[in-house]
């Protein structure tokens, strides 16, 4: 008992202390060093955390040639968040060191053999293999996905906006839920939000469905028995994937414009010109179709792979039972395909929901509609948000909209996803 208590106390007082008590010098030294770095970093951590709360107190001052850069609120927010993360990291290591030392003390008291050195490392590796393997993915996701999102969300609670709250000239302050309240108050903008949200959902559902269906048709056709030169056909159909979307979309924009070659051809046949991109409804249909042109090839590749993954014995059995080919497709191919690709399908829905590039390059939101505030008929929420942020520098407001957007898309996807078979049954395979 005494050893364990002593270990605990020493561990609490000095990082690695408990290990020294039990003569685990290397490990103790290791934790001790981490403790040292903590002490070295502590003033910075505290200062930055304070900065996170205040978001700065001295703005830029200018006197002739002397420009004293004041506090850059957004950078301070960033430093603050990093410091909090760092602090949590230290806390975790600290508690782990105490736990580890106590485990060692306990084992010594019980007289169990304790792994040391190489054996310990091997054991550690064996025990924690999943965690070790996931470390790069988790670190990458935390720092390059989660952290930026966190910052964006935090900005929604500040008054970071033009013209009076732009660093470095002026400071940014926390304003709580003010931006959320403002958005509710701005009734005329709520109309725009609603209209765009409706179209965004239609757009995301339609493109995802058509991309998938188009890819499926291409894959089925090129995999059909008796069709020659399968590789040749596939290579042709993959062309839209190989040509960068940013050129093919611009090309489509010109091809189908009122003065472009397609309409010229129609006119030369004595037909009426078609307002492909100037009629609101037609423009919407066009962007969906063109995006299918560009997106289906990827799904063709993906599905071609999955198709051959379906065991041929299933089809043979079905044929013996006298199933027609449509029935085979309906009851074997499609369910198995969907089972394999459901997560991809959901992610693809989310991707299209935020598919900035397609709209930006194809129509830039046009045709115009003056009843929409700073948006056009084909603008989706993300492109609208982009215009608001970039042209108007209303970062706080943009933060609020992106939170709403994120909550919306995440809940739809999560709902569908947790209900999908591939998630429910994933442990059954």
């Amino acid at each position, binding site marked *: 008992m005494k050893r364990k208590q002593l270990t605990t106390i020493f561990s609490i007082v000095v990082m690695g202390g408990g290990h020294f008590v039990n003569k685990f010098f290397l490990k103790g030294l290791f934790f001790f060093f981490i403790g040292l770095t903590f002490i070295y*970093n502590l003033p910075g951590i505290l200062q930055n955390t304070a900065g996170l709360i205040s978001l700065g107190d001295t703005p830029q001052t200018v006197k002739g040639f002397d420009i004293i850069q004041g506090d850059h609120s957004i950078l301070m927010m960033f430093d603050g968040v990093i410091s909090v993360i760092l602090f949590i990291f230290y806390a975790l290591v600290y508690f782990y060191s105490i736990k580890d030392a106590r485990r060692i003390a306990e084992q010594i008291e019980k007289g169990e053999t304790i792994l040391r050195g190489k054996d310990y490392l091997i054991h550690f590796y064996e025990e924690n293999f999943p965690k070790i393997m996931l470390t790069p993915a988790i670190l990458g996701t935390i720092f390059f996905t989660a952290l930026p999102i966190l910052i964006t969300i935090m900005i929604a609670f500040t008054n970071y906006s*033009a*013209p009076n709250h732009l660093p470095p000239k002026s400071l940014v302050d926390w304003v709580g839920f003010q931006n959320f309240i403002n958005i509710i108050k701005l009734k005329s903008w709520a109309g725009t939000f609603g209209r765009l949200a409706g179209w965004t959902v239609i757009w995301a559902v339609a493109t995802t469905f058509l991309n998938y269906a188009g890819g499926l048709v291409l894959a089925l056709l090129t995999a059909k028995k008796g069709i020659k030169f399968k590789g040749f056909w596939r290579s042709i159909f993959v062309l839209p994937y190989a040509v960068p979307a940013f050129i093919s979309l611009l090309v489509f924009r010109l091809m189908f414009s009122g003065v472009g070659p397609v309409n010229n051809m129609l006119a030369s046949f004595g037909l009426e010109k078609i307002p492909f991109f100037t009629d609101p409804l037609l423009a919407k249909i066009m962007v969906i179709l063109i995006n299918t042109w560009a997106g289906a090839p990827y799904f063709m590749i993906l599905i071609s792979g999955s198709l051959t993954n379906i065991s041929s014995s299933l089809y043979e059995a079905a044929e013996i039972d006298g199933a027609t080919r449509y029935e085979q497709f309906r009851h074997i191919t499609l369910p198995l395909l969907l089972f394999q690709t459901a997560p991809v399908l959901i992610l693809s829905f989310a991707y299209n929901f935020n598919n900035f590039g397609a709209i930006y390059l194809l129509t830039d939101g046009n045709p115009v509609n003056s009843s929409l505030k700073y948006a056009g008929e084909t603008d989706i929420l993300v492109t609208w948000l982009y*215009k608001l942020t970039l*042209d108007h520098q209303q970062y706080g407001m943009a933060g609020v909209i992106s939170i709403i957007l994120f909550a919306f898309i995440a809940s739809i996807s999560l709902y569908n996803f947790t209900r999908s078979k591939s998630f429910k049954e994933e442990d059954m395979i």
Partner: protein
Amino acid sequence: MNKKILLASLLSGLILSSVSAEAGLFFKKKKEEPKKQEASTTGEIMPEAGAELRVWESDGPEGEFLELAGKKFEEKYGVKVQYEPVGMTDSIGRLSQDGPAGIGADVFVFPHDRLGEAVSSGLVMENLVSADRISSDFMDAAKIASTFEGKIMAWPLSIETYALFYNKDVLDSAPATFEELIDFGKSFTDKNNNDFGIFWEVGNAYYGHAFLAMDGGYIFGSNGTDASDIGINNEGAVRGIQNMIKLKEISVEKSGDVSYAAMMGLFQEGKAATIINGPWAIKDLKNAGTNFGIAPLPTFDGKHLRSFSGVRLMGVSSYSKYPKAAQLFAKFVTSDEMLLERYKLTKQIPPVKTLLNAPEIANDPEVLPFLQQAQYAVPMPAIPEMRYMWSPVGAALSEAWDGKATVKEALDTAVKTMKEAMNAAK
């Protein structure tokens, strides 16, 4: 045992150094006390010792000029100038990121309508070395364009506006009035065959301003500085845009069918008899071998069209480590001698009064029409509220053109949208 120690110390050393290195980066050093400035009131301003400048300017002839100017500046002051191609419309956005990161430009070029934005976010330094010269020697439009809240904040490099380009294979001479052009266009235009009397970016407020302001309309009052006074939907503006819509007869049916690429393509093929465009198009048209001429915008109802004029400004970053060298460089670049060099390379009009009379500029057929148009041009307002104007006014022009709304309705909607946005930003 030795191996183990080695391994362990290596490991802990690695972690230690990476953790502390990483952490160290995040922590601000104590704020540096500003160095006391030796009395700068007397004597000439000299570049800081060891100064090096990074300059952003667009790619192309503008960049070529800057590299030349950099060399000459280095010869004179011994300060190295490094040129990087950054588009003039990108520079402010980039500086707001790169400045704090310590990799921003010392001197950069930007369009003057974004001066307000640059000043209100604290990215540019005041012009401390040549304000007097700009007030006395530069054109008024350039002076106004580089001034914000009564202070001269930048250095004007060139002034530009748009004019009428006409295809000489189709039209013998430039039409002096729009009435004349409409007469010609009535027989020339065949919308199904893509033949148009005139073609321009109808839904773009930059060009639309020429009509909007021809008869009393304006964007913001008091020379574009009073955001509470919007003149976009006054009677004059409505009359101006109604004139614009008269051109629909000889132009494109739907505003959405216009794109810059289509305009240039049609003009090069001689299918658009005239286009409204700026000096930046000259190079492309020459490369394509188009036989074209340039003229000031025709009059309408006997009134001159009031195009927007833009001034290309050079600014000194407030993040610059060498503000004196940077300001000296901007002053050097905007000297008469260097602006003349710049004109030779870029064909852009130097905004200095005396230079405009220089024979090589005054007689240049690629410059003269723009100069003539510039007399009637209105400098784009530079207040930060400008950003709320482009999209709603552009939409209004499009809808009026397409006949979805009357001119009055469309412009009223635009003003309403702008006011809402300005209120929301307060």
